[in-house]
């Protein structure tokens, strides 16, 4: 990623792609990267259920799945730690699918150059995001959760692929959104 701003997909279109694939239950915890998407969701009262913490959103979504819904949990990657046990000891072993839409803070990790840029070439994010930014994606893959990191043009295609994976495997899958991909 260079320092320039990535082309953005409008939140309405990003959400339409999710709804077109049947996702009909949304919960999560706020994240600045996901703010446009969450704001779009809240335009319809009751469509989005805010959770106090990310693992509670994962639990709520699991209940909705048992009731026949197709849930999505939105969270910042900082919430992955809180969610890992739920993803492993609930979703994974019970085969309860969940689409995770994750705000990818700290993409590229810690500053790695004299000018403060990180390994990706872009400006490093705030320090609290360096470690999860560098390792969150690998952590998910390590526990068997596939990850897509789409750009704006690739969003709908990534949703399609993730939805097909959820249908087939009935286990969680993650879409990780870098800053500015959805506006």
């Amino acid at each position: 990623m260079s320092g320039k701003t990535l082309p953005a997909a409008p939140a309405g279109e990003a959400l339409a792609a999710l709804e077109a694939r049947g996702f009909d239950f949304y919960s999560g915890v706020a994240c600045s990267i996901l703010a446009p998407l969450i704001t779009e969701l809240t335009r319809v009262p009751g469509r989005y259920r805010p959770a106090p913490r990310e693992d509670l959103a994962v639990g709520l979504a699991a209940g909705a799945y048992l009731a026949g819904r197709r849930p999505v949990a939105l969270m910042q990657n900082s919430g992955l730690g809180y969610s890992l046990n739920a993803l492993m000891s609930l979703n994974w072993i019970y085969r309860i699918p969940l689409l995770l839409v994750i705000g990818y803070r700290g993409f590229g990790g810690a500053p790695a150059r004299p000018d403060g840029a990180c390994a990706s070439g872009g400006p490093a994010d705030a320090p609290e995001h360096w470690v999860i930014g560098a390792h969150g994606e690998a952590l998910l893959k390590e526990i068997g959760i596939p990850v897509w990191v789409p750009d704006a043009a690739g969003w709908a295609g990534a949703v399609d692929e993730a939805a097909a994976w959820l249908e087939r495997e009935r286990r969680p899958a993650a879409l990780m959104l870098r800053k500015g991909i959805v506006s």
Partner: protein
Amino acid sequence: MTTREAIAVVAELLKEEVVICTTGYTCRDMQVVRDRARNFYMIGSMGLAAPIGLGLAVARPELPVVVLDGDGALLMGLGVLPMIAADRPKNLTHVVLDNEAFVSTGKQPTFSSVVPLERLAEAAGYPVVHRLVHPEQIRKVWGAPAAGPRFLLIKCRPDTGPAAPRVEADPERITQRLMEAIAS
């Protein structure tokens, strides 16, 4: 009453309710006392029985949902209390089996002997809150018509003697049989 006795009282009152059982002996006791397709034995993810119950209850408002929670499990994810109170699902009954201990790991104490958990539910805004200490009180409250979410704190003591066997069913099968049982 012991925890298993409390579970048995609830079990005999069940009709079509879905029951989400929290981690540990609650799952194991329920499996022995009254195994049914509408029981969801949550063997891991401690603290998430109540949010799972909430998700079911809001997605299927016509379906009665019971959460069999524990004091330790509730304390682990207290954020669920305002979450449930804010959503106000009428069809949700949140039972907390309060034996003041993490029993399945060796009876290590929680602090629900000094913090009355039902007052947290009350403060969060559950419209119906009861603290129950006798089996008769459970039976009386259970059938009384009331729009939920209901919070029923059942004070009980840990069982002595051998533990019930582990949950036998494959977790995947537990998911399938519940979904088949409640398919609309």
